[in-house]
């Protein structure tokens, strides 16, 4: 106890030096544990998202781009598939197709146009408000609500993709009708709208002053609207009837289609139908794509581990040098202690107590940090994964 008392008094008196040593030692212990925890949680989260999405239909091309766009709402933009492909799945009666349109964003968050099946598929729970019911409605994820400080009753405006593309994307104001409970998945960082709303943003559908009636347009008997016609940038109960779409819905685009097969047999049959390498579409199992990505990340991680080990070794050597210099500085104290009658073991205890006290304090800090990371790993990983979108 006396050795610990003296060690603590020494560390307290030289508090700045002690603080640096404690923090460096704590970091050496904390960083590998925190990295490992976050990586393994990331792996679980990535794989879980992949495994929770049985099949993904999209345009033929990079499977990773398709997966990242459909599961993580990333910036990748795979070539769109037509809604005709969605109808083809429905007609096969082998599974439920859920189209996703992820081309637009608002406030830095991805606008995901989809159908109500997506809400059932992901088992979303509203924390506030209701689900999608009208054209133009938006339901936002928990992270969007937190970051933008918005809730039910507020509205969002889609970001114009090209200000000078007069034929194309106009900003659309969308009322927020619901906020989802946190899921610690990329869904937290998404703005969900009906896929028809996404088509309105894209300019495929629009509403404008009643130069001609919607019935005329549908019948193909109306004159084309000219530039003087005012297009609505907000869908309201008063103007919703004026919104209409041009062309056949089967030709409308979707970024990807989540396919939920009815059973294993249906999944196998569906996969078989998209095996043709020359076909315009592909049906993939995202879990396999994600696992390949995770394996690649963990191969890089092993390199990172080596770098971390080398840095930790260098930091340990620096700490050892600092302690050695401390022992040199305390040589006079040791000589005094010996003259006053200290035993050899006491001298060793005096020196060891300082090191042990330092390590105990550092270990405590590192353990507290590791516990904090472990407790919040899922939330932080969800946020980190959402950063890429």
């Amino acid at each position, binding site marked *: 106890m006396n050795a610990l008392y*003296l060690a603590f*008094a020494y560390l307290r008196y030289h508090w700045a030096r002690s603080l640096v040593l404690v923090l460096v030692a704590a970091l050496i212990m904390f960083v590998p544990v925190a990295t490992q925890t976050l990586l393994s949680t990331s792996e679980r989260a990535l794989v879980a998202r992949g495994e929770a999405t049985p099949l993904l239909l999209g345009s033929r091309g990079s499977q990773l781009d398709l997966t990242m766009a459909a599961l993580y709402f990333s910036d990748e933009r795979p070539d769109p598939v037509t809604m005709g492909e969605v109808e083809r799945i429905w007609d096969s009666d082998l599974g439920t197709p859920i189209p996703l349109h992820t081309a637009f964003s608002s406030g830095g968050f991805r606008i995901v146009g989809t159908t109500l099946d997506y809400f059932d598929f992901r088992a979303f729970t509203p924390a506030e408000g209701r689900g999608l019911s009208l054209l133009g409605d938006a339901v936002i994820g928990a992270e969007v609500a937190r970051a933008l400080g918005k809730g039910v009753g507020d509205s969002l405006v889609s970001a114009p993709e090209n200000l000078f593309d007069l034929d194309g994307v106009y900003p659309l104001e969308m009322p927020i009708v619901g906020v989802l409970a946190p899921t610690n998945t990329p869904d937290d960082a998404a703005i969900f709208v009906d896929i028809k709303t996404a088509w309105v943003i894209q300019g495929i559908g629009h509403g404008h002053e009643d130069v001609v009636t919607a019935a005329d347009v549908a019948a193909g008997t109306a004159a084309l609207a000219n530039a003087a016609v005012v297009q609505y940038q907000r869908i309201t109960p008063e103007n919703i009837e004026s919104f209409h779409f041009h062309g056949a819905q089967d030709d409308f685009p979707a970024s990807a289609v989540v396919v939920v097969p009815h059973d294993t047999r249906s999944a196998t049959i569906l996969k078989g139908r998209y095996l043709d390498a020359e076909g315009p579409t592909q049906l993939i199992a995202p879990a396999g794509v994600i696992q390949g990505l995770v394996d690649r990340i963990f191969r890089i991680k092993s390199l990172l581990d080596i770098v971390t080990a080398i840095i930790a070794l260098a930091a340990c050597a620096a700490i050892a040098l600092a302690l050695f210099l401390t022992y040199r500085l305390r040589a006079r104290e040791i000589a005094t202690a*010996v*003259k*006053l*009658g*200290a*035993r050899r073991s006491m001298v060793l205890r005096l020196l060891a107590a300082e090191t042990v006290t330092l390590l105990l304090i550092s270990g405590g800090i590192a353990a507290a940090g590791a516990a904090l990371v472990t407790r919040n790993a899922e939330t932080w990983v969800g946020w980190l994964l959402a950063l890429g979108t």
Partner: protein
Amino acid sequence: MVDIEELSFAYGARGFRLRVPQLRLDDGERVAIVGPSGSGKTTLLNLIAGILKPDGGRIDVAGTEVTALSDAAHRRFRARHIGFVFQDFALLDYLSARQNILYPYRITPALKLDGAARVRAETLAEACGIGDKLDRHPNALSQGEQQRVAICRALVTQPRLILSDEATGNLDPDSKARILDLLFEQAGAVGASVLAVTHDHELLPRFGRVLDFAQFREEAPLP
């Protein structure tokens, strides 16, 4: 108190040699050791304290033949019966004056830190005029105050013998006499003998006896 007979010690084959045929220090006596630098004054203190082991002869302190003790027993004996005062005070910068005085109790199980020891430390500090400075660290004390703390540390264990190695060497002339008088006064209060190495010849009249150490030094034989 101290009885030395036929003591011999040498630092290696070519170093200086010390030979003390006989030296006696009575209970409560105050003896000064003078002599040129390198004559072995500090070596004698270290031999009496058991820090150095003699090549031959016998040292008896307070009725115990210390030359016959094991290393561990030597350290216990030193902690219990001998107080040290050093020229450089040897205080620890990270401890307060109070904890510096009680330091001997922190480093050896031969001494037990109890309430009586704490009261003794405060009483000594009051007697030495530093009672109101016990919570200060050494760097917040003057040289004289630091040496007073060192004297309190030497006396707090109630030793039988005080070994003082140029205890006033770092002090100004006014402080030297005051500190030495204080050391004698406090040593007298606990009945301790004082054996002091000093270069301050103006202080010698204050000692009961003065020992010129040049007589004990022997030059190593030429090869």
